[in-house]
């Protein structure tokens, strides 16, 4: 099996992040990359809780949001010269506040995992979101609060007027945060988090308090969520109640889940996919939330281990060089699947539009008569039929590819 060195992966990760603006340098692209950077750190911190620690949280945005709010306050204080330090340290302010909040809330929320933890996280989330509208002087009410990142001492002459400069700063933080979150999984505390996730009872019989293990993971997750919040504050220079409410908590859950909870890289994939959907798809359709919901549903049903899990499924087949035997079956199922998705989206959009003439994929449809509905519906059904017909051969191909792998394994061992 070809083993790629871990350090190579990390260098590629860093170079990839640094190189992105070379390929796409529009204002929109940089703005999306910044969102991605924030989303990656946030989703990874969420995965520390759910994927590694087995704690399902519905209120992780609290630590992101509180970190963000304090970070904006810090920006304001720098502006009024109450504080004086370079804004490159702002994410650390966010992280510190996220950690403080987690240190406090964790004392009672990590007592149990499961439903108890989930309900407490939901309650805390609602509590903080409600408080943010009550304590106006701190949270700024519905308008939120805003700051200005261009004050404070310049960093090697950089004064942070451009989003691109912020992007490179974000890359540094994303890389450091990712590295540290990865290292955490390799430490005694990180490994025991997995053990407690799998079996809290047994963990206590090998000397570890399950509660203490959860508490440590919880605080680490709060810290990194706060760093993401600090990055948010730097990028947008304002923050509102929306950034710590249940919707934000829900979105980070979605991105971690869609990416794949069991894998370290999963939330990174999820964060990238969700950011792209959020910022690109929303330009084309008002219904992007619907598509996101459907995608989440399909992931839960058919790819319970997320996109990362789907990729990792092919590791064995790839290692034994059988991947070629899967290309054709994938194409035979993939093409009608693609048509199915395109046609279904067309049908949904056609039903949704209130204009008589509707342009989709360069074609002109008429939403006032039934005939176009029927035509697209036929396409949907035909594609569905082809998928169903092609599934058995895909399954057979998959099985034979894996079977051979098993034989090879035995040969290799003997």
């Amino acid at each position, binding site marked *: 099996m070809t083993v790629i060195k871990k350090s190579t992966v990390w260098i590629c990760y860093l170079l990839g992040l640094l190189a992105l603006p070379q390929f796409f340098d529009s204002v929109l692209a940089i703005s999306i990359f910044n969102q991605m950077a924030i989303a990656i750190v946030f989703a990874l911190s969420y995965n520390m809780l759910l994927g590694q620690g087995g704690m399902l949280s519905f209120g992780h945005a609290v630590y992101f949001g509180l970190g963000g709010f304090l970070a904006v306050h810090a920006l304001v204080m720098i502006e009024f010269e109450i504080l004086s330090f370079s804004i490159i340290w702002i994410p650390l302010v966010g992280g510190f506040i996220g950690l403080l909040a987690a240190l406090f809330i964790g004392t009672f929320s990590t007592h149990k995992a499961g439903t108890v933890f989930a309900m407490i996280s939901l309650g805390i989330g609602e509590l903080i979101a409600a408080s943010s509208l009550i304590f106006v002087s701190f949270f700024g009410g519905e308008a939120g609060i805003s700051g200005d990142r261009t004050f404070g001492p310049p960093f090697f002459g950089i004064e942070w007027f451009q989003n691109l400069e912020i992007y490179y700063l974000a890359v540094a933080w994303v890389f450091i945060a990712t590295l540290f979150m990865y290292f955490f999984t*390799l*430490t005694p505390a990180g490994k025991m988090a997995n053990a407690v996730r799998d079996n809290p009872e*047994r963990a206590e019989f090998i000397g570890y308090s399950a509660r203490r293990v959860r508490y440590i993971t919880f605080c680490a997750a709060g810290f990194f969520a706060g760093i993401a919040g600090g990055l948010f504050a730097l990028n947008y220079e304002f923050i509102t109640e929306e950034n710590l409410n249940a919707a934000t908590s829900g979105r980070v859950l979605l991105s971690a889940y869609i990416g794949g909870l069991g894998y370290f890289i999963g939330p990174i994939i999820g964060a990238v996919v969700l950011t792209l959907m959020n910022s690109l798809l929303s330009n084309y359709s008002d219904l992007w939330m619907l598509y996101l919901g459907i995608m989440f549903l399909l992931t839960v049903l058919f790819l319970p281990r997320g996109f990362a899990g789907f990729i990792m499924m092919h590791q064995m087949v790839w290692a034994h060089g059988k991947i070629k035997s899967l290309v054709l079956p994938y194409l035979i199922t993939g093409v009608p699947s693609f048509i199915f998705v395109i046609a279904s989206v067309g049908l949904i959009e056609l039903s949704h539009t209130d204009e008589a003439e509707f342009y989709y994929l360069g074609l002109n449809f008429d939403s006032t008569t039934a005939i176009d509905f029927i035509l697209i519906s036929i396409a949907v059904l035909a594609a569905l039929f082809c998928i169903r017909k092609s599934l058995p051969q895909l399954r057979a191909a998959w099985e034979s590819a894996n079977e051979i792998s098993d034989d090879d394994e035995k040969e290799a061992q003997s």
Partner: protein
Amino acid sequence: MSVLSLHDVTKNFGETEIIRGVSLNIERGEKHAIIGPNGAGKSTLFHLISGLYNVTGGSIKFKDKEIQNKKPYEISRLGLARSFQVTNIFARLNVFENVRCSLLWSSGYKYSFWHLLGRQKELNEKTLEVLEQIGLQDKKLTPAGELAYAHQRALELGIAIASGAEVIMLDEPVAGMSLTEAESAVELIHRITEGKTLIMVEHDMNIVFDVADRISVLVYGEVIACDKPENIRANTHVQEAYLGEVVTDA
């Protein structure tokens, strides 16, 4: 000298008395078996000693410290390890990680998030030694949840003994095994408990008489006899209450 002593321990679940005044002294280095019919309270007794349940009354002393009603992790840290009747492992961690986790506390890592496990040479070597002892060195990268049953039982033992605890409690270590599997399991138990104190609950009388220096018979929450194997075999009370049918079966 007793390493573990129970004094008049009782346990009620609501109105029901499950353990009714058990007193027991386990000597350092002895191999002690607890037998008794189903529902006699053997597993409950184990749960009381290891801290999973709180006692209703009485006291339990381990190395002269009172441990009744202490948390399982506190008791474990004092050097008392146990296995479970129903396999109780970390299913999504691999075999190596399972064993290494149970070595962490006794190796002094506590809740450290500043040591990288991959770099702890001594810890990883110790883990491999335990894996060799339990015969799972070839399976070290297999997720524990995917192991065959007998291998899971071996891992169950491995997790219990890895920490190097001086007192090891095994709850039906060969339950559900085939005859040959049970044989190698007994051999394993002999090997891993050498020089240690062993307390074992077991149904299979052949294994009990093979392993134990002393046997306690628990019936309806009371110890009706505690003696050497040959005396237990000869004890008419025990035969009436429990052994009679088993002996004639065998």
